């Protein structure tokens, strides 16, 4: 598939975008300005959560710890390092792949008006397929996170155990909540696609959801490095 071109907006006059938004005085879709402003504010939210985690890092008097073993001096019980890098690496690959599926879903919607001849073009041009793949990958990531949280609790780390537990569960829990909202958002797009079919006029609607989804992905890129890979 060659480079995609979104549908040309209608000539100025009524001030409406093809999918019901409004053009601002700059000629930009007001909903895209809104989502970028929202994403900017989300940057500051996650920066505050990440800095809280980093400030409290290494300040827990009692374990379990993320990367070091710990022996409880009272009971003599030994706690192994809590982080499971292979599992988290797998979930990271899944989330990155979901972003790839999301851009293909957006490209498919933008190119709805382009005739598909070959099987490859039909696969690449199926917005339903790529939205489903993105949703399934998002749910897989959430499944990995549920497994991780459950195993941490079984290994003795809860939100109330120590500073590490509090800051870790708060940060990754907020991120998981954002992924959950993203999956629900994508399911609403899928419902629309199955009911009436997404058209090229819906490209901005899908683009806004895609921007949110990619932002959730870039936040995880930072979390994965700062929390899991740097000891």
């Amino acid at each position, binding site marked *: 598939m060659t*480079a995609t071109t979104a549908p040309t907006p209608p000539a100025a006059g009524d001030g409406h975008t093809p999918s019901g938004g409004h053009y601002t005085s700059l000629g930009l879709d007001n909903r895209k300005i809104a989502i970028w402003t929202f994403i900017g504010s989300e940057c500051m939210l996650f920066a505050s959560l990440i*800095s809280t985690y980093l400030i409290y890092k290494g300040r827990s008097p009692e374990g379990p710890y993320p990367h070091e073993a710990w022996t409880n001096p009272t009971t003599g019980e030994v706690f192994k390092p809590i982080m499971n890098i292979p599992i988290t690496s797998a979930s990271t690959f899944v989330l990155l792949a979901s972003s790839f599926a999301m851009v293909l879903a957006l490209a498919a919607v933008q190119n709805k008006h382009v005739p598909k001849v070959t099987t490859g073009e039909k696969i690449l041009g199926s917005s339903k397929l790529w939205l489903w793949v993105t949703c399934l990958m998002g749910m897989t990531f959430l499944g990995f996170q549920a497994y991780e949280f459950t195993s941490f609790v079984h290994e003795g780390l809860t939100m109330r155990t120590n500073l590490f537990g509090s800051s870790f569960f708060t940060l990754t829990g907020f991120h998981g909540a954002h992924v959950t909202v993203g999956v629900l958002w994508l399911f609403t797009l899928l419902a629309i696609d199955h009911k009436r079919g997404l058209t090229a006029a819906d490209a901005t609607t899908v683009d806004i959801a895609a921007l949110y989804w990619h932002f959730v992905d870039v936040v995880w890129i930072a979390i994965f490095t700062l929390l899991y890979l740097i000891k």
Partner: protein
Amino acid sequence: MAEHSQVAAPAHDEAHHPGWSTYWKVAVILTVITAVEVSAYYIPAWENSWVYVPSMLIMSGVKFYIVVMYYMHLKYDHKLFRSLFTGPLVVAMITLVGLLFLFSKLVVRLGLLS
């Protein structure tokens, strides 16, 4: 419809996005960088050296940049969107680094305070 006469002509806020071939290349690059990051974690010589943390931060930053520029189309979109994202991002980064200098052991680790 007088009020609409002052609405500017639609700009190219969603004009030209890259295609399948670009998205595929970006996906491969992201996968390779992530694989290198995870591998570095398991290589003691790398993980114990002073270059480990800077290399991890650089690789993470490159991944962040690539996703924002190509998957979020910031490279192709209107510059206002870039400002709306990078402005708060810079403020967030300055806040993060400031808090780390104030409350963490970063100052000591960097040798700025004994």
